[in-house]
């Protein structure tokens, strides 16, 4: 009756398959076929219409075969059954992330604007030493505040600060390890490739099951996973690209591994590492907008509202705010990078 009956007969597996109608739930196409009246009837399937021997098609021929929905069910069951033990480990490890994010969000908003904005401008001055840039950032922030986007913008910024900081804190040591050992590099590279190619929506799914949507670490982890890749890659690359002659000189004068790392390799790789930090910050910004889907506060929430409620104006204004933040973050990190470069062009 089904296309692949013949195969199971040829293999002599009819007994294993069970004699008659399957007890498994019917697939959607079966239901459609049945309801349109011609189901069950003896039917010649032309070669042209032969279905791919998928699990569902094979299940039609042999009831003992699993259906595709069993696979998704199985995955879900499997995930749910390890979830609890996974949580025992992951929860305490990631709890500080929640604290940091909540603390940053609270601190940034609880502090009055006339302290926060000058403090931000001071930071910009310290890393860039450029009056023009400070002016630009000041005007942009004032503009955002003027159209009442201040709170949202600060939420977005504080999430980025925390996540980018953690990316550097975790990513730079991983990059250093990769640059030192080829086997570490071979192991890490596929993971990085995966993180970089997976659309962020995809790894939001397991995270939602693992952590509750009310916890801020959920979006924190999503952002860090997404944004950490460039800082790792460029730290590794930067250290590997350090002039071999200089490394040789460090060895010839008897530097220890540690002296070489902190006195030569990291300082000389710093421009490349900073380029990675720049990318990491920009990717954090991109992800913090997407992460509003899983309750990350900030400008992304407004964008989401614009989409959901078709509030064009709200969405556009929030979008403008995001663009402004992006330009600010990019300019400031690039200015810092330039300052490092000008000290040591080689």
């Amino acid at each position, binding site marked *: 009756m089904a296309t692949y009956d013949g195969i199971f007969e040829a293999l002599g597996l009819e007994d294993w398959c069970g004699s008659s109608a399957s007890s498994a739930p019917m697939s959607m196409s079966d239901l459609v076929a049945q309801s349109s009246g011609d189901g069950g009837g003896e039917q010649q399937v032309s070669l042209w219409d032969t279905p791919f021997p998928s699990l569902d098609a094979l299940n039609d021929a042999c009831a003992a075969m699993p259906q595709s929905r069993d696979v998704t069910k199985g995955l879900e069951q499997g995930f749910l059954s390890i979830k609890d033990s996974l949580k025992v480990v992951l929860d305490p490890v990631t709890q500080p992330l929640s604290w940091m994010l909540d603390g940053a969000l609270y601190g940034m908003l609880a502090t009055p604007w006339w302290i926060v904005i000058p403090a931000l401008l001071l930071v910009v001055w310290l890393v860039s030493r450029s009056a023009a840039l400070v002016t630009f950032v000041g005007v942009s922030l004032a503009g955002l505040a003027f159209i009442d986007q201040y709170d949202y913008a600060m939420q977005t910024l504080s999430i980025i600060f925390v996540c980018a900081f953690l990316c550097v804190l975790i990513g730079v040591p991983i990059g250093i390890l990769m640059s030192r050992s080829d086997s570490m590099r071979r192991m890490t590279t596929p993971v990085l490739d995966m993180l970089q190619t997976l659309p962020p929506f995809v790894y939001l799914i397991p995270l939602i099951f693992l952590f509750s949507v009310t916890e801020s670490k959920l979006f924190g982890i999503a952002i860090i996973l997404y944004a950490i890749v460039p800082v790792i890659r460029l730290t590794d690359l930067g250290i590997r690209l350090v*002039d071999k*002659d*200089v490394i*040789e*000189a460090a*060895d*010839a*004068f*008897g*530097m*220890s591994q540690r*002296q070489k790392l902190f*006195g*030569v390799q990291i*300082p*000389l790789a710093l421009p490349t590492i900073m380029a990675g930090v720049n990318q990491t910050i920009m990717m954090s910004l991109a992800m913090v907008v997407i992460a509003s889907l899983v309750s990350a506060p900030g400008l992304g929430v407004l964008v989401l509202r614009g989409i959901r409620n078709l509030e064009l104006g709200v969405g556009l204004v929030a979008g403008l705010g995001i663009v402004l933040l992006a330009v600010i973050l990019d300019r400031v990190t690039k200015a810092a990078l330039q300052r490092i470069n000008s*000290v*040591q*062009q*080689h």
Partner: protein
Amino acid sequence: MTEQKSPETRVALKHLYKIFGDDPEGAMEHVTQGLSKPELLDQHNHVLGLSDINIDIPDGKITVIMGLSGSGKSTLIRHLNLLIRPTAGTVEVDGENILDFGESRLRTLRQETMSMVFQKFALLPHRTVLENAAMPLAVRGFAKDDRQAEANKWLDRVGLQGQANQHPNQLSGGMQQRVGLARALTSNAPIMLMDEAFSALDPLIRTDMQNLLLELQEELHKTVVFITHDLDEALKLADKLVILKDGFIVQQGEPQKILMKPADAYVEEFITDINRARVLRVRSVMRRDADLEGVDDAVDAEATLEDVIAQSRGDSSACFKVVQDDRVVGRLDMTDLVRALVPAIPTAEEDAPRPAA
């Protein structure tokens, strides 16, 4: 080869082999069975970098290792501080085989006994000239004031007064190599390794640097190992000359002896183009124990033939008594001098071979 007799050996390389490739030990067996460098490359895809190197590096002298590009000079000098480890053989420093040293002992050796100057300077671009020069002492944990005082002293000595706060990229090549030299001197190591240290410099600056090195050496008496591919530079600096070709030693000994008696056609070819009058010294050409009757004019044993020609005012029949440390040690006839100016014609009396020490 000619054995150096008096000065003590500071570093001795014994039966040193270096093979580059995936399985150097395996390839080493083929080499001991007598495979040559091209055969090893063709049949086993390994590069024979150094082959049976034996050198005694004398204390307090400049030993120059010369060879064409790719002859293994850089590989050889990196064996002295084990930046490259040999496939076979030993490296003895002050009588101890440093291949047996552990990591920390080797680091101490590199910090305190050996310093190095590089062809491409290899300065730290993010540090000032002063910090670069003070680096060897910083590595050893000296206090900032102490190491900077020492670094300043040597920066002044190599002619870099007032440049201490510049960054290396603000200096010319010649100045950068002075920093490299100051850095090596600041470490106060008795052995100084120089890998084509002056090759990247313009000719005039190179001459300056050579003179600076000789000047410093007069005062400091370091054990210098100097790599070059330039014969003029080699002859100017060398107390002992080692000629390297395709990873093996063609000839080694005192430069004057190599000039007077090249070991084979390769060395002969090498030395044809030099200005022999400027390089050869009276002591290499004079006759010992010769009759000194009627000879009044004196020349110093260390004078070059060019000096003597100038002194003779072109008189080809002149002859001189040769003086060394206020003692008359021999006699020099202009005919012998002229003969010595042309390579490959044996001089009348071959420089009397002294009994091997």
